[in-house]
């Protein structure tokens, strides 16, 4: 009855009952597979200039059309999926580790520690992600590293807040008190008693952070602060395509649609996980 196993079991049940969550999971799986296998799929070279006519509409040879340099747009979108997912996953993983650590610290130790961590999170939270993005880009230069840094900075306070509040409720439970009385170290209490019991909430929060991360990455790349050409991300493709919006709308449409699908599917799966973890309680009126 490990956390992972119970979540998977509940998810499977939910997926069977709820078509929307099922759809979300299917789309997400597809996108991740495409992103993973992208370089090995027979879609053509994303960087080959003048593979076809410039700004050609979708056709059999170029399903998503071509861009202003005559590059086939489909492999570029696939590369964009890859970049957007990869950057978000890396950033959110950092967030999860750092955010859970400080969140648990704040929730378990009251007083000064809590005060500092919680206020620190509030201050971070108060900065709009874009301002932070400009700042970071100015300091370390635009690129993947700064995109990851900005996503982490923007999502860590959310994480700290949620982890802190669930930690507070778990820390008040009898088994934690019993362990404290037995003389357990704070490290032991946090790893053995608190972490396994807040893991569900952490996973749910992870999916939300993931969708926020994808939005931030796209925004940054759209503003030219994230992924740099010739590399593509969904955001930089949107930026690139927006210049030709009036006479080559397929560029923006294809990248935009894929981005929306990605964010939507992540959210749907996140909702499904949350429902699986926190089933409705209480008496229903039948």
């Amino acid at each position, binding site marked *: 009855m490990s956390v992972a196993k119970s979540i998977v079991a509940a998810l499977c049940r939910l997926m069977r009952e709820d078509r929307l969550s099922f759809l979300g999971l299917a789309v997400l799986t597809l996108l991740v597979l495409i992103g993973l296998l992208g370089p090995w799929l027979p879609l053509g070279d994303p960087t080959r200039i003048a593979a076809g006519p410039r700004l050609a509409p979708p056709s059999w040879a170029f399903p998503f059309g071509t861009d202003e340099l005559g590059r086939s747009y489909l492999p570029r979108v696939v590369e964009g999926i890859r970049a957007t997912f990869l950057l978000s996953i890396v950033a959110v993983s950092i967030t999860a580790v750092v955010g859970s650590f400080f969140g648990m610290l704040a929730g378990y130790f009251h007083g000064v520690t809590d005060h500092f961590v919680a206020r620190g999170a509030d201050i971070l939270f108060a900065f709009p992600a874009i301002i932070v993005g400009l700042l970071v880009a100015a300091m370390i230069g635009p690129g993947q590293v700064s995109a990851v840094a900005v996503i982490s900075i923007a999502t860590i306070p959310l994480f700290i807040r949620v982890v802190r509040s669930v930690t507070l409720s778990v820390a008040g439970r*009898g088994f934690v008190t*019993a362990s404290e009385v*037995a*003389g357990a170290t704070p490290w032991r209490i946090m790893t053995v008693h608190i972490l396994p019991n807040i893991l569900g909430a952490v996973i749910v929060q992870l999916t939300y952070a993931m969708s926020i991360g994808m939005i931030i990455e796209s925004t940054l790349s759209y503003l030219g602060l994230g992924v740099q050409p010739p590399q593509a991300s969904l955001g930089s493709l949107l930026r690139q395509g927006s210049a030709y919006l009036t006479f080559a709308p397929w560029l923006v449409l294809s990248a935009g649609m894929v981005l929306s699908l990605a964010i939507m599917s992540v959210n749907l799966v996140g909702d499904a996980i949350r429902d699986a973890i926190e089933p409705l309680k209480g008496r229903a009126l039948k």
Partner: protein
Amino acid sequence: MSQTIVELQDIVVTYRAGFLGGEAFEAVRKVNLSIREGETLGLVGESGSGKTTLGRVCLGLLAPTQGVMRFGGAPFGTLRQRRGQLSVVLQHSEWALNPRLRCGASVEEPLIILGVKPDERKRRVTDIFDSVGLGDGYVDRYPGQLSGGQRQRVSIARALVTEPRFIVFDEAVSALDVSVQAQVLNLIMDLQHKYGFGALFISHDLAATRYVSHRIAVMFRGEIVEDAPSERFYGTPDHPYSQMLMSSLA
């Protein structure tokens, strides 16, 4: 004469509302209590009377604002120094055990903290499950697979596994059914006979407390208003508040 385990001298606990001073609230006022080896002291009173706060002081979880708590004749020190010497059994049976750990692992934990060797731990866990009337089969179960009474037995096993000198039972039977309550109360008394620990039995239920305790302290608004042998609570206790509690048993 058996030795005094826990001794409270002029304990005062003050809570301050707010960050900068604010109004102070005296949860416990000048309480003196002592508990001997092999003796159960019942602590009754309504919620907000300070009995849970006093329990936390006895467990070393809360440092009193004033006064001294002595354990086995010496100052308490830290919980880490006292590990294995005291333990607690709490009310809410659904949260008393970590739902992610098998019952055996929960019971084993105090031994791990104490630094007992693995094969010795295994033997003692098996023994203690036996003592609380749960067979070997329960070691590998998760708390969610047990009834309230069984979970409370596991909690008692965890509290007893290091053979501590002092155990606090905080509303330990309040959430249980009448029939199960009697089983657990009898179990506590039998185990005390066997292991000789001193106990503080905190409850708002005078009937259960009087049954399991040797002495009863009645707490009212942060003070002990009566401290008398349990037999008195089968007759007429002195303090008007005690008498009112008695009236609900008539």
